[in-house]
């Protein structure tokens, strides 16, 4: 895994942007030709295509491959072209300049390491030039080479060149783009494209090719803290292999890592690879697989980091975004936000500013229109692990989804809250809500998840893992178990048959109230008698879900974490369900989880999958659902 195989330095990807008709495609065609990158066949194809349309030879046909692009002489979608410069390999990304195809320009730009911004010397800096510059910064492209094109149309005027250069320098400084070089060119004729031109003797700077070859990038700092956005968990034999790309830092066997947003710590047990090569660490850029020690529950969307400098758990995000939706974006709109590998339902809480393209000043607004760049505050139902773009750019990038369509993208500028302060919206006193309204507010239904099974079958472990995960994902949830019920609600009760029945009756009633209030109540009780469980089901109605946590009596006795089985065998614990065999197995449980066959994290995953399914609302968090 090194570059010892005699490879050239990694390629640089340059996105070509600018106003429509300022000559982007022509410049690329010329670059292809002048660097000998165009195959003879391709050249012939372009000639034929031009003849076929009765137009003069058109360099842009090298890129505008679609019939409609050639017929209308406009770039519709972004494309890629590979060039070999003497110094480095180059991937040019052609991005359409037409306003209507801004989503395609943004798509192309998001793969660029640097930009080549083309400006028509005659027409000068246009609105679209400014918009593209603004979007480059938003997308994360911080380096630019500027081609001031069609210099022949301004009589190769040095004054005009200086004027445009000055205007752009001011613009870039305000936006935050490092423009390294401004090259005056005539793309059609190849002036200053690959070879210096005699038409502008006042210009002593590099050609476009040399300027691109000279672009320098900061290598990523090796000291930056670890970040992995978890793509998912693969089960191989009994292992749970967590997979994702290392966004920054390194991860090695024995490292302690933090899982966010739950903020649980765990230790790395192994780095997995195939074919096995014995590696013990992975670095930035690697698509890694690893396992953790202990029962830590990791799922898609979690962030793995080093314990120090972890991402902040938050539900309110200040963002900067480009809006690509047809309808204006307004406060109260509900969308899905995809941040890293996490998908979260969000609501627009505030539209803070819209950037005016001409002045670059920010103005207040009540709606964000298509193609606007704006700063927007979102409120998430879930707790998200959030990095700001200034700290970990690749984890701060998100797209916005409305129904099934992508309607925008941007970066997180800051997390605005801690999770505890997140859900303090006041409810007017005296206002009555029905179950549906509560469910809509919470984003899910209430439920009673009743875990029944032998002592030491794993009910409490399952309940705790599920509660933790549900909480992180923004669900209202609460665990009822012997520990928090026996001390108060059932403090007058003992362990006789009647007392146990009464205890379960009370728990059933309380759990039903929780469910009615919109909460997912997870009740973890042996609850050995069918009649008692059926009574609890009647209390909660359709919201009741009986989960049989199954494990053989022998397995439970072997586990015996509280020593109850041992005491019962010794005769010091009376009426113990596991030994006397008076547990009545559920006849028609809604779910069976066999904890003697699978690990606690797998069991919890099974339970979570079930819970998330039964509490889900019919319609998703789309904007139309608001009405």
């Amino acid at each position, binding site marked *: 895994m090194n570059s010892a195989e005699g490879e050239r330095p990694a390629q640089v990807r340059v996105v070509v942007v600018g106003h429509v008709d300022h000559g982007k495609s022509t410049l690329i065609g010329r670059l292809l030709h002048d660097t000998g990158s165009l195959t003879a066949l391709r050249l012939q194809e372009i000639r034929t295509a031009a003849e076929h349309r009765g137009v003069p030879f058109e360099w842009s046909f090298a890129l505008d491959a679609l019939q409609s692009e050639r017929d209308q002489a406009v770039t519709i979608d972004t494309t*890629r072209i590979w060039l070999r410069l003497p110094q480095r390999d180059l991937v040019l990304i052609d991005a359409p300049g037409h306003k209507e195809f801004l989503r395609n320009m943004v798509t192309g730009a998001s793969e660029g390491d640097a930009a080549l911004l083309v400006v028509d010397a005659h027409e000068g800096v246009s609105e679209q030039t400014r918009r593209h510059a603004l979007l480059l910064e938003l997308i994360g492209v911080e380096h630019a080479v500027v081609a001031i094109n069609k210099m022949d149309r301004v009589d190769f005027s040095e004054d005009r060149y200086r004027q445009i250069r000055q205007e752009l320098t001011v613009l870039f400084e305000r936006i935050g783009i490092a423009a390294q070089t401004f090259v005056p060119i005539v793309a059609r004729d190849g002036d200053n494209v690959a070879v210096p031109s005699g038409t502008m003797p006042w210009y002593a700077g590099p050609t476009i090719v040399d300027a691109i070859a000279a672009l320098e990038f900061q290598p990523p700092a090796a000291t930056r803290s670890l970040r992995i956005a978890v793509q998912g968990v693969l089960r191989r034999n009994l292992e749970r292999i967590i997979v994702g790309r290392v966004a920054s830092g390194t991860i090695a066997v024995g490292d302690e890592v933090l899982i966010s947003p739950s903020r649980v710590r765990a230790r790395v047990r192994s780095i997995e690879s*195939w074919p096995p090569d014995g590696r013990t660490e992975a670095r930035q850029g690697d698509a890694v697989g690893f396992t953790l020690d202990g029962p830590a529950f990791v799922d898609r969307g979690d962030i793995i980091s080093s314990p120090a400098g972890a991402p902040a758990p938050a539900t309110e995000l200040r963002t900067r975004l480009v809006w690509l939706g047809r309808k204006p974006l307004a406060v109260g709109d509900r969308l899905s936000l995809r941040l890293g590998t996490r998908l979260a339902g969000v609501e627009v809480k505030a539209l803070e500013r819209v950037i005016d393209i001409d002045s670059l000043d920010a103005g207040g607004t009540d709606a964000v229109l298509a193609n606007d760049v704006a700063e927007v505050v979102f409120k998430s139902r879930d707790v998200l692990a959030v990095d700001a773009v200034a700290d970990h750019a690749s984890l701060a990038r998100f797209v916005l989804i409305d129904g099934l*369509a992508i309607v925008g993208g941007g970066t997180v500028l800051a997390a605005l809250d801690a999770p505890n302060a997140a859900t303090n919206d006041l409810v007017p006193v005296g206002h009555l809500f029905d179950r549906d309204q509560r469910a809509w507010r919470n984003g899910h239904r209430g439920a009673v998840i009743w875990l029944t099974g032998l002592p030491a079958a794993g009910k409490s472990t399952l309940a705790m893992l599920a509660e933790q995960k549900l909480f992180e994902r923004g669900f209202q949830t609460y665990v009822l178990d012997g520990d928090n019920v026996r001390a108060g609600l059932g403090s007058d009760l003992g362990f006789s048959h009647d007392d146990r029945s009464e205890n379960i009756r009370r728990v059933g009633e309380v759990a039903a109230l929780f469910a009615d209030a919109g909460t997912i109540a997870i009740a973890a009780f042996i609850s050995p008698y069918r009649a008692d469980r059926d009574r609890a089901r009647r209390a909660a109605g359709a919201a009741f879900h009986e989960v049989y946590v199954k494990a053989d009596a022998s397995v439970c006795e072997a586990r015996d974490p509280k020593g109850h089985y041992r005491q019962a065998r010794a005769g010091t614990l009376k009426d113990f369900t596991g030994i006397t065999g008076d547990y009545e197995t559920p006849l028609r449980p809604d779910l069976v989880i066999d904890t003697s066959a699978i690990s606690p994290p797998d069991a919890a995953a099974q339970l979570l999958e079930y819970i998330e399914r039964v509490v889900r609302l019919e319609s998703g968090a789309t904007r139309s659902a608001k009405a």
Partner: protein
Amino acid sequence: MQERSPSLLDELEARSIAILREAYFRVSPLMMLWSMGKDSTALLWLARKAFFGEVPFPVVLLDTEMELPEVYRFRDELAAAWKLDLKNELCPPEASIDPTLPPAARAAGRKSAGLRALIERGKYRGVIVGIRRDEQATRAKERVFSPRAPDGTWDVKRQPAELWDVYHTDVPDGHHLRIHPLLHWTEVDVWRYTQRENIPIVPLYLARDGKRYRSLGEKNITVPIDSHAATIADIIAELETTTTSERAGRVMDHEAEDAFERLRTGGYM
């Protein structure tokens, strides 16, 4: 801390593996097309890496029964050795294909029709395909997760935005996604990777009697090129200097200017 500068191949590989995993976790049911060519075989190797030795979805050959015999032999050997869930999908006969397509393009038309039928039958939401942007100008316009209408058509004028590596993986019922993990690779990248990883290839890629196949298609519409490249290292050296395109030997690409675009918007890979 010792600095390791990841090579281009490491970066290409990691990105492809991440895309394959994204497809696996987000799109179901899922399958992969395998033509036994160098690209989809390298892709298969990447899938084995991504999922630690086992390919967790079916691998499909859209079979026109016109592949070269060496290709079929290669399929059977590798399917057994790599324990693939191989599905051989026979494509409908040429008589059922759009007669306005140029003759050599009709084999591709048969594949599109075979794929459409398979997707409909298996209700697939995702098809992993080993195409690359540098192969062909309309492929250069592709997305990594590229939506297709129920009839398989590609609405090239209205492709969705695709930002960074935050891929959008949801499509309406009946639609499906073409997933392109090799989109960012070039021909020589694939050969360098095949060499580095020691991935098996169909022997027809290597020169015999001064001829070799640079691109493998159906036997009646693919012609070998003049070459003395007898090893992968020779091929890489040859590609460093060549000025002809990879698909020059594919007759179907050159019958008409819009032949390939018509095929692709109609559902071809």
